[in-house]
């Protein structure tokens, strides 16, 4: 099928503003959006810039705004977003500084990630073998540990777009993973971070994060669980 690919371009060395550029591409319905964007880069305009690596939704590089929603380009099939002769649009994710074309500055995102102490803390001497944990307890971390840090969620959150200091759903998902890890000893401190005015209380349950997550993590549910955990801890 023939489709139009409309991409929001920006070259920091030439442009003062972002502008749309449209390319005609021949593709098949089972192709990924990433395939089409790669096609544009490889055979039409090599200066087109974006991040990508694994091409199957596991590395979290290619979050972009496709047809008005945050998705991974490599996990979106054309048949799900466009018909023959139709148009797909691709824009950089919002709320982070656009560096070039579809590539944004991810540092603030990772800063938020680092702020929740995203690492296992338990200073008690470890046993010779593993620390035991029941399958049910392990399951509590299932959703949180599934995250690939793609930023689809955080950059779809209406609060994150406008409020520069909101820690964002991705960081809360990470915090959830540790807060509900029975082996971890720093629950208290992490709940405290979540209790800051940059933390969970900024979330207004807009659900964009949950809808956007390519790993199907029920993010809003996790955020609500963290809110309750903070509340019960303080009570």
């Amino acid at each position, binding site marked *: 099928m023939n489709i139009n690919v409309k991409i929001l371009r920006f070259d920091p060395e030439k442009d003062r503003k972002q502008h749309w550029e449209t390319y005609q591409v021949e593709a098949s319905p089972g192709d990924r959006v990433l395939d089409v964007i790669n096609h544009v880069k490889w055979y039409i305009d090599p200066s087109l810039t974006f991040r990508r*690596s694994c091409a199957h939704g596991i*590395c979290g590089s290619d979050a972009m705004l496709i047809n008005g929603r945050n998705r991974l380009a490599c996990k979106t099939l054309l048949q799900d977003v466009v018909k023959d002769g139709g148009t797909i649009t691709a824009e950089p994710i919002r709320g982070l500084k656009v560096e070039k074309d579809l590539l944004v500055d991810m540092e603030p995102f990772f800063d938020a990630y680092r702020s929740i102490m995203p690492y296992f803390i338990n200073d008690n001497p470890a046993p010779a073998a593993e620390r035991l944990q029941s399958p049910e307890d392990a399951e509590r971390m299932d959703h949180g*540990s599934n995250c690939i840090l793609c930023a689809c969620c955080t950059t779809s959150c209406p609060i994150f777009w406008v409020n520069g200091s909101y820690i964002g759903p991705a960081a809360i998902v990470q915090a959830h993973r540790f807060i509900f890890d029975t082996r971890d000893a720093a629950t208290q401190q992490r709940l405290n971070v979540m209790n800051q005015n940059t933390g969970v209380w900024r979330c207004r349950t807009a659900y964009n994060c949950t809808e956007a997550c390519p790993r199907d993590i029920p993010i809003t549910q996790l955020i609500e669980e963290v809110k309750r955990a903070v509340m019960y801890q303080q009570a």
Partner: protein
Amino acid sequence: MHHRYDVLVVGAGGAGLMAALYAAKGNVSVACISKLYPTRSHTGAAQGGVGAALGNVAEDHWEWHMYDTIKGGDYLTDQDAAEIFAKDVIEAVYELEHMGLPFSRTEEGKIAQRKFGGHTREFGKAAVERSCYAKDRTGHMILQTLYQQNVKEGTTFFNEFHVLDLIIENGRCSGVVAYELSTGEIHTFHAKAVILAAGGYGRIFKITSNALTLTGDLMSIYYRKGLPLEDMEFYQFHPTGLTKLGILVTEGIRGEGGILRNKDGERFMERYAPTLKDLAPRDIVSRSIYTEIREGRGVGPDKDAVNIDLTHLPRDVIENKLSEITDLSRTYLGLDPVKDLVPIQPTAHYAMGGIPTTIDGECIADDNGTLIEGLYAAGEQACVSLHGANRLGTNSLGDLIVFGRRSGINAAKYARGTELAEMPENPEVESRALIENLKNADGSENAARIRKELQETMMNNVGIFRNGPDMEKQVEILRELRARYQHVNVQDPSQRFNSELVEALELGFMLDCAEAMTHSALNRTESRGAHDREDFHTRDDVNWLKHTMAYKDFSQPGNVRIGYKPVVFKDAADGEYESLTTYTPAEAAGFKFPPKPRTF
């Protein structure tokens, strides 16, 4: 810009992060350079698990694991490496758990384990549960956990820095040169010790499970210095990739009981590997699938795939233990493994060969085992020769954590006892020239087209089945592609985020890897492990029990000089290791794991 650290790690996948972590524990300053954000590294794609003889589910011993590794590697495995590995990996897995890795659990709360291809009890009697897993995203969990620990330790990261050159003078490595994507600046990193961990190069093939960024950069850079690449002919094709896409379907799917079927619905692995059936090692399963396809029993529009059947498994297993792959086949093929057969085809997956290293991670410069001081390598891009001619599933993640750790510890130790070596003047000239050449090349060759041709021809001529004439043809094709590469012109003039330039550089690296592979494969006139020659169909221990060392021959572009390195064997007396380049069955009597015909 100029930077200075005690230990420098190139690559932030499982191997690089593990090395950085353990180097930092050695009280030296450490920095990690990576062309990707660490969590984007392809270690995150590993699904199946990490093999270690914990014996949590069924009795298991490291000796069994060692034996499986050697046999799986078709006796090209260095047995000292296999011994250290099988012992160390147990401790390393516990260490990962102590770092918080969320493993799946047994009912008693221990790390859960499952069966995996080629892993057996009592030296080949029956499959054993050895793969420690975290659902089917073990690699993801390892990558995340190791990155987390590095955040905790405050490791310095240089993300989106592409290493373009190694600085080696007088047999001593004193640093690297890197290109910063965001600014286009060239940086020199001056260090006492450098650890290379930049991953594989699967992208030289058309159908691959590897990321677009796995282009063998550091192997090529090493090779361009006139240094050898070991065992490049051994490249593993994973039996189960989603058709056309090459996206990996974890072997865990067969570990959990998935069955391969041809177009008649026959469980054909019963014919090829009567004991282990679908759980035979990868090289065997891949070849069996290919044979089925060649003999017309394939499925799909082009009859170039076979089906994997999960429909007899409980829904719960498919949805939970295999959620990742269920998700992938739903997303990309629109098929639901709960009720549909999923068509799969072998996909280029893993490089057994690479930069030759000792069991301590030190890089080897020639056939005699001369070391390059201050240079270490680990992970897929290194060749300790643990995997020999064919890697067993789950042994790569184990390799990362065992040898990543060893090289980290050793590099730190080395760095503590030495001073910074003198840097040559203007170490970055060559890198600058590399970039300038691409930016100012005449011609109008398109890098993407050359890459596509490379991938297609490598797949056809140096793929699962190989023969002399095809590979000779490929040598010529590579010469021609290399000549055309000289005329690749980068059109994007920009300094900042010039991803076109990066892709063009990567193409150059890929051509080198393909060249070393093709020559090595053409040279080895036997079939062993993943290297299967139609014109030399049997394994030849008398002549070929040795590692290939491929050197770039600068006399003419596209030429390769081949050398050899012995394979390390162990005495039955359990004491000394001995090196062998030739072998007669009589000699073998004294060895613990002598080469034997491989049946499963």
